[in-house]
């Protein structure tokens, strides 16, 4: 504890971020699990929701709910306005040029699948090549594998080094005249690596190849600017940025979205329907068939307001302190190996306790109220690269504290004593 205090005072983290006040916004953080205060370190899987977002959802459901884009009555018009306001919030959150470039989806996975179906199936042919990286989450591998299988195209993989960083030279060598698409994670979910995406996008654009960024793990931690990144598609989820589950965003450049095929057919995505012919709606509605998760979209907009209220830069600074401290403390434990030591990382700490399976680590830590993720993190190729079946992963959010890192460290030591 003394060490924690000294590190904190050195870094003046409390001057940057009033964590105690922020924590008071999150009712779930006051919970006890197995009689111990909850230490929630599974934020890369899903983040918690602050009271203002919960209140917004309750207000919507108690006072404002109706279907959107349909009726002329007051509730419907109000719900439509709020839903479209949420779209503009998402536009500002990632600095898209145009609100019509924001498509609401059920989450990152659906966003990626939408691009696979709408762009991939329309424009990728037999013999073409799609590039992914060795760091991808299954949701940014499997859709492209399905596409390649269907079209007779080839999936190429940019390898990573022992630190968990993409080998840029190898990535660049993958490009040729057959390369037609690049799908790559902005931040690795399993290791926390922040990829040099600007550089990687520039390479792809030299070959006129569009790039999709899987931003599920980046959106909670980094200030995003899709125009500065110049990515062609950007996908992220609401529930990892303190919003509800079941909602996410696909950003796409207008010109690309306009030439894409719809992904789902149904109501709201059409301009006119006869049995002979259907004329599709304009973007983004062309891609939003059926009644969307209206409450979730409005809730996600509210979560974006909340994060902006704190400031993504301050969030990032505090999380970097947490990561550095955790890397130092956990890394100092004899018999613990950290997997993923990239120079540029988000607040994710994947580790192994020698002689103890990660699932046992997770179960024993849970007995002390510590919630971490254990397993392959839906990134089996990453696990294969490091020759392990699974890891334990602590992932931090801005509401975590250095004291919680100490609880984690002590928890790991306890696991070792138990198994020792």
């Amino acid at each position, binding site marked *: 504890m003394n060490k924690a205090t000294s590190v904190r005072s050195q870094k003046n983290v409390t001057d940057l971020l009033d964590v105690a006040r922020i924590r008071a916004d999150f009712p779930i953080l006051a919970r006890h699990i197995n009689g111990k205060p909850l230490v929630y370190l599974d934020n890369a899987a899903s983040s918690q929701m602050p009271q203002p977002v919960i209140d917004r959802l309750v207000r919507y459901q108690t006072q404002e709910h109706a279907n959107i884009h349909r009726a002329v009555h007051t509730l419907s018009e109000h719900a439509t306005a709020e839903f479209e306001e949420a779209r503009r919030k998402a536009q500002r959150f990632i600095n898209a040029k145009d609100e019509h470039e924001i498509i609401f989806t059920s989450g990152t996975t659906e966003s990626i699948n939408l691009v696979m179906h709408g762009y991939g199936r329309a424009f990728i042919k037999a013999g073409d090549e799609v590039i992914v990286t060795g760091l991808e989450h299954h949701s940014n591998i499997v859709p492209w594998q399905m596409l390649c299988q269907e079209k007779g195209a080839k999936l190429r993989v940019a390898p990573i080094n022992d630190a968990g960083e993409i080998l840029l030279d190898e990535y660049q060598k993958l490009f040729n005249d057959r390369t037609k698409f690049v799908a790559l994670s902005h931040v690795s979910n399993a290791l926390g690596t922040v990829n040099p995406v600007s550089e990687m996008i520039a390479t792809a654009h030299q070959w006129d190849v569009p790039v999709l960024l899987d931003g599920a793990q980046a959106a909670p931690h980094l200030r995003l600017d899709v125009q500065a990144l110049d990515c062609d598609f950007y996908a992220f989820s609401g529930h990892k940025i303190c919003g509800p589950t079941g909602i996410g965003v696909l950003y796409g450049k207008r010109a690309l979205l306009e030439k894409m095929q719809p992904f789902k057919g149904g109501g709201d995505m059409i301009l006119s329907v006869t049995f002979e012919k259907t004329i599709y709606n304009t973007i983004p509605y062309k891609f939003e068939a059926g009644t969307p998760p209206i409450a979730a979209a409005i809730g996600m907009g509210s979560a974006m307001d909340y994060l902006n209220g704190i400031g993504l830069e301050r969030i990032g600074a505090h999380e970097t302190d947490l990561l550095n401290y955790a890397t130092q403390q956990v890394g100092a434990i004899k018999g613990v190996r950290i997997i993923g030591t990239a120079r540029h990382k988000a607040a994710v700490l994947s580790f192994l306790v020698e002689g103890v*399976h*990660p*699932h046992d680590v997770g179960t024993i830590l849970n007995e002390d109220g510590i919630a971490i993720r254990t397993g*392959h993190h839906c990134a089996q190729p990453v696990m294969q690269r490091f020759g392990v079946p699974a890891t334990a992963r602590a992932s931090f959010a801005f509401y975590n504290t250095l004291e919680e890192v100490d609880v984690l460290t002590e928890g790991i030591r306890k696991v070792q004593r138990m*198994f020792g």
Partner: protein
Amino acid sequence: MSDIKQLYQEVILDHNKKPRNFGALDNPSHKAEGLNPLCGDHIFLTLQVRDDKVEAVAFQGEGCAICKASTSMMTTNVKGKTVEEAETLVQEFRDMATGKLNVQKQPNHLGRLAVFEGVKDLPSRVKCAILPWHTLHAAFNSVATTTTENEEEPMKSAGVTI
């Protein structure tokens, strides 16, 4: 102490460190591979069944402590039993781990295996405990379908994934 910690300290840690019947039989009459892809638990089971009785059983593999301990204890418990008795244990163990069998109140043959009752409170770990039992079931039932023509890849036809 919580039930889970007690489970770990009384049984799991011991079997994890000193697994019983660890290894592989030379000429097994039955064998199967069990895989739990979610956590990477992976076990190979070899059995010698003669006159409908489990004469010998051994296991190899990698996995978490719950899986290893469950497998280790399974081997000591089914040795000497008839196939039918062992299959009864498979069913009862599965029912206990999934909360369908209350070992205190309902008749059963689990004996010492009842210490695994606590895993029913850990839904994500139930599979770890059950894996060896599924694999044993697969091994017993593979003889009927695995013929000598399949000798090259007998594991494949007997493989079980849960």
